[in-house]
C-alpha cells in the first residue's frame, strides 16, 4: 500500500531503490531532547523529505544514508517518553514500528540521553516486548562524563541484548561506529553481543529492569541518584520567577519580534523588487496580449506572492529551533501559561500568537510545538486575529484618512487596531473552549531539558526543511488561487469608455510636456482603470454583492476592494489606488493623493470615505479573514477544510458584526 512514509522519488545523489543491493528501513526513536533530530541531520543532512504519517497531521522526516554497502531509509519518529501513552505521538510511533500503515522498520535506532539513562531505557524495554530489533545510540556521553558518569559499554550491551554505540551527535563523533553497528546488525539479523541479557519481562516493572541494567554497567558519583546542577537551578529560578521571568520573556520576545519584523523585511523587499523587475522585463520583451498578462500578473505575481513568505518562515523556525535547543522555550511556556490559561490557551500558544503579528502563516506552522490537539486547534483558529504585517499598509491608509491633521490620534488608532485584534483573539479562544472545543486547556506538565548551546546546523536545516515543505504543499494551492483571482480581476476586457477616449484626444492636441496634457492623460487613465475594474468579473461580483456591504458603509468600489483583498489584505490598497487614482503604484502616503482620495465621490455625489465608513473599514480589516494563503495553511495543519471554513466564517462574521455596530453607531451620533 502506498504510504506517506515511503518516499516516492530517489533523492539527489543517492542511488535509486532497486539499483543497490538492498534498501533497509531504519526508525529513529527516542525521548524528546535526546538529540534524535541532531543525529538524523548528521546521518541524512539535507537529503530528506517531510510528509505526514498516514491519517495524521504528525510530520515525518525521511532521509537516506549509507551504512557501508547498505542503503538506508531513515524515518525520524516523533520524540516520545513511552510507546504505551495515549498521546498522538506515541500512537504514531507504535503504528510505525509495528508496520500498521506502512512497511515496518528493519531496525530501530534508539537514541538514549546518557545523562538520564534510567528514564530513557524504558523505550528499549517496550521495544523488546514488541520484538523490534534495536541498536542503542548512547548520545551526549560528553555531558554525562562531565557529571562524573562512566559507562561499561560491553556490559551495558550484554544486559540490553543489543549493540551500544557512544555518540556525541552534535559534534558528529561516533557516527562511523554507529553505521558499522547498524550494518552488522542488519546483515547478521541477530544482536551478536553475547553475555547475559536481562529480560524486562522477568522484572516486576520496566523501572526495576532499568535500575538493574544501570547498576551493573554505569558507574560514577551520581550513577543512580540525582545530580545538582547549580547553574540550572539558578537559571530556572530566574526564568520562571513571576516578575523577573516575565521581564526576561519580554526581552527575548521583543528581540525575536524585532528580528522577524525588521530583519526579514530585507529579503522580503528584495524578493518583491526582484519579481517586480522580472514583471517589467517581461512586459518589455513580450508583445501585449493575454499570454503576457497571464505571465506577468498571474504567474509572476502568484509566485512572488508565495516566495515572499519564505524569509519570515525560515527565520521564525531558525529562531524557534535555537530557543528550543537552549532549553529556554520550555521555561517561557510556563511564564505565559499563567495568563493564557485564563482564556483556554496553553502557555505554548504564546510563540505562535506572537509570530502571527509578523504573519499568521509561520505562526500557524509553529503551533506544532503545542502537544494537545484541542489547544493546538484553538490557537490555529485565533492566530489570524493578531494584526499581521500585511494589515499595516491598510491601517496606515485608513488612519491617515480618518485623522488627516492629527497624527497623534492616528497613532493611537493604529495601536488600537493591535489591541482590538489581540483582545478578539483571546476572547474568541475563551468562547471556543466553552463551545466547539469544550474543555479547559491541559494543565502544563513539561520536562525542563538541560540548558545547552544551540545547534546552528540544526536550526538551518529546520528552516530549510520548513521552507521547502511550505513551497511544496501550500505554495501549489496558493498559486492556483492567485491565478483564479487574477483572471476574475482582469477579464473580460472592455473597450475604454468614450469619456476617456475624448480626454486622450484633448491631451494629444496639446503640447506634449504641458501640465494640462499630463492631467488630462491622468484623468483618462483613471476612467479607463475604473471602467476595466467595474466591468471585470470581480467588479461585477462587487456590484452584485454591494447590498450586503451597504449597511456597514461600503459602496461598490470599497466592496470590490474588500473582495479582492480576500486573496491578500495588501491588495486592498492597490485596488483603491486603481479605483480612485487609476494607478496601482500611487503613493498613498502622499498628502496630495490622500486629499484627492478623501474628496472622491460616489455616483450619487456623497463622499466615498466618510469618517464612519473609514472607521468601519478599519474595524473590518482588523478582524476579517482576508488571506487565502492562511486558509490553505490552516487546512494543511488541521488536516481538514472544515476548520479552515470555520475560521473564514467566524472571522468574517465577527468583522461584519463589529463593523456594522461601528458604522451605525457613528452614523447615529451624527459622525459623517
Amino acid at each position, binding site marked *: 500500500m502506498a504510504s506517506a512514509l515511503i518516499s516516492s522519488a530517489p533523492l539527489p545523489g543517492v542511488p535509486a531503490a532497486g539499483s543497490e543491493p538492498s534498501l533497509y528501513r531504519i526508525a529513529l526513536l527516542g525521548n524528546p531532547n535526546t538529540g534524535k533530530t541532531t543525529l538524523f541531520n548528521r546521518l541524512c543532512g539535507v537529503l530528506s523529505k517531510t510528509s505526514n504519517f498516514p491519517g495524521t497531521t504528525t510530520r515525518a522526516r525521511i532521509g537516506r544514508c549509507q551504512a557501508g554497502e547498505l542503503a538506508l531509509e531513515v524515518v525520524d519518529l516523533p520524540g516520545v517518553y513511552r510507546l504505551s501513552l495515549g498521546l498522538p505521538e506515541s500512537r504514531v510511533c507504535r503504528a510505525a514500528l509495528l508496520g500498521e500503515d506502512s512497511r515496518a522498520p528493519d531496525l530501530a535506532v534508539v537514541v538514549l540521553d546518557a545523562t*538520564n539513562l534510567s*528514564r530513557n531505557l524504558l523505550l528499549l524495554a517496550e521495544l523488546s516486548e514488541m520484538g523490534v530489533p534495536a541498536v542503542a545510540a548512547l548520545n551526549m556521553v560528553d555531558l554525562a562524563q562531565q557529571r562524573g558518569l562512566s559507562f561499561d559499554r560491553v556490559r551495558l550491551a550484554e544486559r540490553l541484548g543489543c549493540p551500544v554505540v557512544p555518540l556525541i551527535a552534535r559534534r558528529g563523533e561516533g557516527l562511523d561506529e554507529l553505521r558499522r553497528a547498524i550494518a552488522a546488525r542488519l546483515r547478521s539479523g541477530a544482536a551478536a553481543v553475547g553475555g547475559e541479557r536481562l529480560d524486562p519481562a522477568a522484572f516486576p516493572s520496566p523501572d526495576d529492569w532499568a535500575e538493574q541494567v544501570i547498576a551493573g554497567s554505569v558507574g560514577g558519583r551520581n550513577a543512580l541518584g540525582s545530580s545538582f546542577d547549580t547553574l540550572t537551578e539558578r537559571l530556572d529560578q530566574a526564568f520562571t520567577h*513571576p516578575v523577573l521571568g516575565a521581564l526576561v520573556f519580554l526581552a527575548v520576545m521583543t528581540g525575536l519580534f524585532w528580528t522577524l519584523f525588521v530583519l526579514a523585511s530585507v529579503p522580503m523587499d528584495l524578493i518583491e523588487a526582484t519579481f517586480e523587475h522580472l514583471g517589467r522585463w517581461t512586459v518589455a520583451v513580450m508583445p501585449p496580449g493575454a499570454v503576457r498578462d497571464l505571465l506577468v500578473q498571474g504567474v509572476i505575481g502568484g509566485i512572488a506572492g508565495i516566495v515572499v513568505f519564505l524569509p519570515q518562515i525560515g527565520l521564525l523556525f531558525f529562531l524557534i529551533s535555537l530557543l528550543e535547543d537552549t532549553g529556554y522555550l520550555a521555561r517561557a511556556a*510556563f511564564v505565559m501559561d499563567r495568563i493564557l490559561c485564563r482564556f483556554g490557551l496553553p502557555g505554548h500558544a504564546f510563540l505562535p500568537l506572537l509570530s502571527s503579528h509578523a504573519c499568521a502563516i509561520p505562526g500557524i506552522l509553529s503551533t506544532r510545538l503545542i502537544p494537545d490537539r484541542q489547544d493546538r486547534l484553538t490557537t490555529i483558529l485565533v492566530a489570524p486575529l493578531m494584526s499581521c504585517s500585511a494589515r499595516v499598509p491598510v491601517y496606515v491608509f485608513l488612519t491617515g484618512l480618518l485623522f488627516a491633521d492629527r497624527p497623534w490620534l492616528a497613532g493611537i488608532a493604529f495601536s488600537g487596531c493591535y489591541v482590538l485584534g489581540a483582545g478578539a483573539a483571546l476572547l474568541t479562544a475563551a468562547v471556543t473552549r466553552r463551545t466547539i472545543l469544550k474543555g479547559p486547556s491541559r*494543565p502544563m*506538565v513539561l520536562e525542563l531539558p538541560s540548558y545547552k548551546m544551540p545547534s546552528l546546523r540544526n536550526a538551518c536545516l529546520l528552516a530549510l526543511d520548513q521552507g521547502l515543505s511550505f513551497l511544496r504543499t501550500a505554495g501549489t494551492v496558493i498559486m492556483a488561487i492567485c491565478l483564479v483571482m487574477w483572471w476574475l480581476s482582469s477579464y473580460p476586457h472592455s473597450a475604454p469608455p468614450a469619456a476617456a477616449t475624448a480626454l486622450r484626444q484633448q491631451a494629444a492636441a496639446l503640447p506634449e510636456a504641458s501640465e494640462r496634457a499630463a492631467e488630462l492623460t491622468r484623468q483618462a487613465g483613471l476612467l479607463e482603470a475604473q471602467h476595466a475594474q467595474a466591468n471585470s468579473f470581480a467588479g461585477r461580483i462587487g456590484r452584485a454583492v454591494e447590498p450586503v456591504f451597504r449597511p456597514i458603509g461600503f459602496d461598490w468600489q470599497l466592496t470590490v476592494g474588500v473582495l479582492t483583498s480576500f486573496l491578500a489584505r495588501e491588495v486592498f490598497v492597490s485596488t483603491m489606488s486603481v479605483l480612485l487614482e487609476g494607478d496601482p503604484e500611487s503613493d498613498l502616503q502622499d498628502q496630495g493623493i490622500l486629499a484627492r482620495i478623501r474628496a472622491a465621490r460616489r455616483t450619487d455625489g456623497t463622499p466615498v470615505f466618510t469618517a464612519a465608513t473609514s472607521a468601519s473599514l478599519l474595524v473590518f480589516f482588523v478582524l476579517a479573514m482576508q488571506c487565502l494563503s492562511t486558509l490553505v495553511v490552516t487546512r494543511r495543519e488541521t488536516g481538514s477544510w472544515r476548520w479552515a471554513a470555520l475560521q473564514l466564517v467566524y472571522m468574517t462574521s465577527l468583522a461584519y458584526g463589529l463593523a456594522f455596530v461601528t458604522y451605525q453607531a457613528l452614523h447615529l451620533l451624527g459622525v459623517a
Partner: protein
Amino acid sequence: MIHDVSIPAASPVQLTELAEGSAVRLHSSDLQEDDFALLEALGMTRSCRLRICKAGDPWIVQVRETRIGLAASVARRLLVVPDSLL
C-alpha cells in the same frame, strides 16, 4: 481518579504544602489518567523520590535526572510523604 502508588506510614500532604529543597516520595495523585501516565513516563513512578527544586507556579521537581515543571493545578493534586518521615 486516585492513583495509589504506595502506602507509607506517614500521612501524605499536598506537594504544594512543602518548601523548596524538600525531599519527598510520591504517595498518590488524583490527576486524569493521561496526565498521570505522562508523569509516570517522565519518571514519577511508584514511591519515587522527588526533590522540590522550586516552589510556586510553576513547581519544579527533580526525579532522578529529570527536571519536571508542573503547573500549580497539577502540583496541588500530588500527595507526597516527606522523605525524612519514612
